[in-house]
């Protein structure tokens, strides 16, 4: 069972450089959220602040009654056991092989026997496709493998809150699709609250229940995925299309002169893609995600405050979902004809999606 995480008015600066200010959002219990944002906008800093590694100057991060920013260190340490964080670079222990790395949290926090540890670790290794590599040192494997091992380590204690820092970077498109499925399956199995930081639009379109975006030291939006996907906000639209035209530049942000010069130039429409695709479903044989039901209630309650485009997008996706639910129920009652998943929403566009 996941835990709600609520972030209130978080502000962080390094020296005189403000990273973001007054960020407030709530990760609803057991739901999957995605945080988008151009490179260097402080997404990693945000994740680290949520878990108490970096202390913002003001604001609170409430997890199960503990404020990860201001509570005493002892409480923060205790609360961290609820989290699994996958670091952007894996952050594996260089002196231990993969097996010991993944077994580390088990050996530290549980009294499991070595045979039991072996079973759990091998299960996780299989989940991320690293069986056979457990004896290798982190220096002997590829970057993508390190990331997957980092994910396995983050998941080994069945955390109630999972934070993933760019799980897709360093992975090929196929592995990324598998990873998306893995995250959804995981959510169905342990109902953990998840926050995924990514630049990858395929993950953003198919995985989350909620989406947010950080830009120019602010949280642009955070809400149901349809809200961001239908947003007219120039930053969001530019990010989702990958166009060069818009407020996001190569450096942190464009200045006014560059924007003015750009207006004279030819259009760069970016890549046209339909991101309003159905959300991934858990693999056959797994239970329903219990977050779906909770989210339906929550979203239906807030429909009136949304833009018309977002409202209709939410309505149609909710309707589509109840249809598939009835179809699935029928399929469950009668023996399945074709075992494969017919509805694998292979993204129509793969190129240019990583940042």
């Amino acid at each position, binding site marked *: 069972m996941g835990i709600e995480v609520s972030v209130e008015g978080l502000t962080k600066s390094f*020296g*005189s450089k403000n990273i973001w200010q007054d960020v407030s959002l709530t990760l609803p219990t057991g739901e999957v959220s995605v945080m988008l944002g151009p490179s260097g906008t402080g997404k990693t800093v945000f994740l*680290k602040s949520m878990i108490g590694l970096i*202390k913002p100057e003001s604001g609170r991060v409430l997890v199960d009654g503990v404020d990860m920013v201001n509570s005493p260190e002892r409480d923060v*340490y205790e609360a961290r056991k609820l989290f699994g964080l996958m670091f952007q670079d894996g*952050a594996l222990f260089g002196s231990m092989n993969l097996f010991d790395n993944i077994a580390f949290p088990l050996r530290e*926090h549980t009294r499991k026997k070595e045979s039991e540890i072996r079973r759990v670790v091998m299960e996780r290794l299989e989940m991320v496709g690293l069986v056979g590599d457990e004896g290798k040192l982190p220096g002997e494997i590829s970057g993508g493998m390190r990331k997957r091992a980092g994910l396995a380590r983050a998941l080994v204690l069945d955390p109630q809150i999972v934070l993933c820092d760019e799980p897709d970077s360093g992975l090929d498109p196929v592995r990324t699709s598998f990873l998306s499925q893995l995250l959804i399956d995981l959510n169905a199995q342990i109902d953990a609250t998840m926050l995924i930081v990514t630049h990858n639009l395929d993950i953003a379109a198919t995985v989350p229940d909620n989406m947010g975006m950080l830009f120019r030291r602010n949280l642009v939006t955070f809400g149901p995925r349809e809200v961001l996907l239908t947003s007219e906000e120039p930053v969001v639209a530019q990010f989702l299309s990958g166009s060069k035209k818009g407020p996001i530049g190569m450096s942190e942000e464009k200045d006014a002169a560059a924007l003015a010069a750009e207006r004279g130039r030819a259009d760069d429409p970016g890549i046209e893609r339909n991101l309003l695709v159905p959300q991934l479903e858990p693999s056959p044989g797994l239970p329903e995600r219990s977050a779906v039901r909770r989210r339906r209630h929550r979203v239906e309650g807030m429909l009136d405050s949304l833009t018309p485009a977002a409202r209709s997008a939410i309505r149609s996706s909710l309707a589509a979902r109840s249809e598939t639910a009835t179809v699935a129920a029928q399929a469950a009652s009668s023996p399945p004809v074709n075992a494969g998943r017919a509805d694998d929403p292979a993204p129509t566009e793969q190129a240019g999606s990583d940042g």
Partner: protein
Amino acid sequence: MTGPAEEKPDGGPAPENGPTSGRPGPGPTAEGDADGSRPPAVEQPLPGLGWLRQTGALFALAVAVLRAVFKRPFQFREFVEQFWFIASVTILPAALVSIPFGAVIALQVGSLASQISAQSFTGGASVLVNIQQASPLIVALLIAGAAGSAICADLGSRTIREELDAMEVMGVSPIQRLVVPRVLATICVAVLLNGMVSVVGTLGGYFFNVVMQDGTPGAYIASFSALAQLPDLYISEIKAALFGFIAGVVAAYRGLNPRGGPKGVGDAVNQSVVITFLLLFFVNLVLTGIYLQLVPPKGA
């Protein structure tokens, strides 16, 4: 106690934070703002503030280490590994340094004593210098140079690879898990090394005095038992233990807070050795002064 990891962004002296950066308003009056609840965005760069902050953080780490020593479970394996490692890199150089050091002291004291016709005290005097001063300082040299730099480089590279962050995220305190075993191992090695250096140095002194300077073994040993007493050995070992603690904590502190990437680790190692040297020689001065004041010399 906040972990030292947060010190990274603003831990340095940060002289670049000029008084004008940040707030547009008049700097000095900003403190008296109507809403006193809001902390000023940019700290007033008082001269020496960075130094003070570093020193404070160093002491905070020392206290945290002392507290974590008593926390269970004790990382016995890490301790043994580190002990073995530190011992293996320090024993041979210590032995090799202490023989000529003991010899130099014996020769110097011997020639000085013969000038004032006090040859019979050569043994006692050189042994005292050896045990009380030379041997702790040789230990300091090796503990700071060999053990401290290795600890600092190890922790520093782990910090920049985010291994320590990962450990904290998993609810494991790097101080308890990594720093405490290293500091304890350094202390133990320092104490044992000090014993070894004392013995080797004394033997070297004896050899040089008796063989090279025609001293008599009887006079050497007689003067030794006339002047030396057990507290001399105690203070020597106390010094060594304290040196080990300081070297371990300073190395850990610099290792946990490297600035920037791999280059920062190199700088941190360098600084840790220099800082440790300065501290150890100063502490040696203080301890020697206290000891000479408190413990009456034998026969006085």
